[in-house]
């Protein structure tokens, strides 16, 4: 009896924790249709699984209480029961039925998540290239011709198509409030649809271990109304252009602040096709194969844990507005020549 009491006390204790913890269970508090589908699937599976847990726990407790030696006495000699085919078939078939009940929505959801959310499928998705670099995130909006570092803005109620790649180690792109994660890999491009249903600030991060600076490899997502988003795009397009020299600095290991540029790195490199770029930059290897024809050998000395502290053009980030005010990089260059290479 002492055993059962302590078990009950434990269960009570646990439920208190659960209730107190529920307030911030991000995954079960979805802010978009993708996360919502996943949350529904999770809740459905928790329900079925709780049923199994209850059945086993009840059986377990009843059997232990009923057949403990202290109750039956030391003279009781248990019958030898070899088995029972009927019972064994029952507890083979019922789990199979439960698994089928789980497998059908699982497969449906797996396929559904490969497409834009149904309700907004008619809308043109916003395409954002998300690239993980040790230990920062670089985002490119090819259509808007914007590049940001460590933050993005997205319009609400419109599917966002993230094209994921990595410049070096394998990361995982995850915005728990908006939906599940997907790996970023070098030389490979993966695609992920997400969507926000309401304006707000959401936190995104790399969830796949990438070494020393992994914990801080985070970014913010600002979901806005279409009008606000358009405003932000306009503003961002006034930011300075991204030079390859600047971009190569981002390729070095280390953290970075939020930045905004009015051109994208896709003009030089698509990390979804090219696994070598960041390694070449870090080791001062020639980048001749790439469009600009510059060898940037001067970066050879920047290996390791470069924190960008000493870079001359670092002083004027305005992280909230997302602007970087470099007068020398005015918008005089022709952006029309940018081409995407994928």
């Amino acid at each position: 009896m002492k055993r059962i009491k302590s078990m009950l006390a434990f269960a009570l204790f646990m439920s208190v924790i659960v209730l107190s913890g529920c307030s911030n269970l991000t995954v079960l508090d979805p802010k978009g249709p993708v996360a919502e589908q996943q949350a529904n699937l999770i809740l459905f599976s928790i329900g079925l699984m709780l049923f199994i847990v209850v059945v086993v726990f009840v059986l377990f407790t009843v059997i232990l209480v009923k057949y403990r030696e202290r109750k039956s006495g030391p003279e009781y000699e248990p019958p030898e029961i070899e088995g029972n085919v009927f019972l064994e078939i029952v507890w083979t078939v019922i789990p199979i039925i439960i698994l089928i009940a789980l497998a059908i929505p699982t497969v449906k959801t797996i396929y559904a998540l490969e497409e834009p959310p149904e309700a907004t499928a008619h809308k043109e998705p916003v395409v954002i290239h998300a690239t993980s670099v040790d230990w920062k995130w670089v985002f490119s909006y090819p259509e808007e011709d914007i590049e940001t570092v460590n933050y993005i803005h997205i319009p609400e109620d419109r599917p966002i198509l993230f094209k994921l790649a990595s410049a070096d180690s394998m990361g995982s792109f995850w915005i728990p409030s908006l939906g599940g994660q997907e790996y970023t890999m070098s030389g490979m491009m993966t695609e992920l649809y997400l969507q926000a249903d309401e304006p707000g600030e959401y936190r995104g991060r790399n969830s796949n271990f990438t070494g020393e600076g992994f914990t801080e490899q985070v970014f913010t997502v600002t979901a806005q109304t279409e009008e606000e988003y358009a405003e932000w795009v306009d503003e961002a397009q006034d930011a300075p252009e991204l030079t390859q020299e600047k971009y190569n600095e981002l390729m070095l290991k280390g953290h970075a602040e939020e930045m905004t540029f009015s051109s994208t790195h896709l003009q030089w490199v698509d990390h979804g096709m090219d696994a070598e770029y960041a390694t070449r930059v870090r080791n001062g290897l020639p980048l001749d194969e790439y469009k600009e024809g510059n060898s940037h050998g001067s970066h050879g000395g920047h290996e390791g844990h470069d924190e960008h502290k000493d870079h001359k053009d670092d002083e004027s980030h305005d992280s909230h507005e997302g602007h970087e005010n470099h007068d020398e990089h005015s918008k005089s260059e022709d952006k029309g020549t940018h081409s995407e290479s994928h």
Partner: protein
Amino acid sequence: MKWDEFFVTGDPLIYGADVSIALTLIGVIFVLTYFKKWKWLWTEWLTTVDHKKLGIMYVIAAVLMLFRGGVDALLMRAQLTVPDAGFLDSTHYNEIFTTHGTIMIIFMAMPFLIGLMNVVIPLQIGARDVAYPFLNAVSFWTFFMGAMLFNISFVIGGSPSAGWTSYVPLAGLELSPSVGQNYYLLGLQIAGIGTLLTGINFLVTILKMRAPGMTLMKMPIFTWSTLITCVIIIFAFPVLTVALALMTFDRLFGSHFFTLMDGGMPMLWANLFWIWGHPEVYIVILPAFGMFSEIISTFARKTIFGYKAMVYSMVVIAGLSFLVWVHHFFTMGAGGAVNSFFSITTMLIAVPTGVKIFNWLFTLYKGRIRFTSAMLWSLAFIPNFVIGGVTGVMLAMAAADYQYHNTYFLVAHFHYVLISGTVYACFAGLHFWYPKMFNHRLNEKLGKWTFWIFVAGFNLCFFPMYFLGLAGMPRRVYTYGAADGWMSLNVLATMGGILMGIGFLILVYNIYYSFRYSPRETTGDPWDGRTLEWSTAAPIPFYNFAHVPEVKGHDAYWIAKKEGTDKIKKPYKPIHMPSNSGVPIIMSTFFFISGFGMVFSWHWMSIAGLIGVLATMVMRSFDYDKGFYVSVEEIEKLEQTTK
């Protein structure tokens, strides 16, 4: 290389460890010299080929590794208790979780189980030793040297820090230039040799050396689980061997298997690793299932319910274990068809596992349940493993896994299955078979203290982690912010971790206490056992059985006791036994030297070590020692002193 690059410096924790390692070594050497025990140590233990002694050495090594891995775990819990803690920096934290995972799986769980297999399997099938006693010693010593090589990274050269999965490109030379990763590769490689040999050895032992009458379907369940585990080892471990070798080539000789440059393919590593890694999970869980079956059956005083289903379910699990590896990276974007296939195969594993759970429950049904320490561990396994199992099914649902992956939900799940499966089994098995190893029982009262404190601590530590995962806490972060709101659950987890540590300490004290005060065994059958190991004398003679027993069912000894055929005396016959050999420990030492040389790319040293390995192999090839016969008089003399 400068000395301060060779020795790890700059951290008081590590200096403390240096001092304690040095003191322990000096203490051990002093005690051995003072009591003139060197010769005893060499002839009785270091050169032994006796499966029981090798088993004991495996278990001792595993308990030491459990301590090391446990300290790692507590350091991590200390760092994560409160937000923005400055106890460990990120590099240090990364090293600790890497060594924690690697040590617990490779150098704790497997050797613990293999140690118990070593002690029990030959006894359980009525054999006098394993098929290849010499090879068995090689297995132990390569495991031991591999483990030592991995562990010295702590003080010499620096620990690996790319996670126990060592995903590339992170673990490649470009992003992890320190020698730590080399320790991982070579330590695992050397220990892997031992595991593969164990697999072959025990497979042949079980297939060929069973007592007369023990057909396959009359083998005890633990023997069955070991047989199946061996098959998994034989097909899974070569994959690890190759994967480790390829990464070693990448790091030491400039090849391009997993590099970012020149066409390498990092994802190949993840695939190879998990093609080994998932079967590995079943290598450490199936023997645990086997042990629980034996213990539950013994202390319920009933034969196992649904013997055939228990066997077939393990066979099915073993087969499925090779078909699910992609579920470790559903988030790689492999497409709907691939993810759906691997979701379903993964879920299917729940079916045979569920069958086993219900069969255990119905073994208890109508039994006469005695709550010994071994039984308590086995009983606690059922509810805890069910929690781990159902959350495993939830993780198997790929679409949901996108949200669980890389979070504490996953951490909670695999600790629930590995601790309540494997670790509970190790503790249960240790209590259960302790009399066979040391000829006395562990103290029951202390055993129960260990049990309640550890199990409460375990649930307190890992249950909150499911919620941390759903709250978005990723695994392997070394700290978090106050705004994340993860603190209260982390505080609970740390409290649980401390309780588990206390439980472990009580267990260690129990080992000492029982050694001093526990009454010695007189019967060899302390629990009223059912299988053949309990028919052996106390203390158990080195040849195990004076007579090879006859077997009539899977509870062979139980049946014999019922029929009164367990005490029949026949005239003795001379018994053939293998000779001790110093070759295994010397060969493994050369492996160690070679591995150490490779870690630092000192090729003269690695080549010298390899030459030593080859030389010992040649020595062995020319060794025609055929063991010795124990004469009838000797047997008679020994048999009178026992039972």
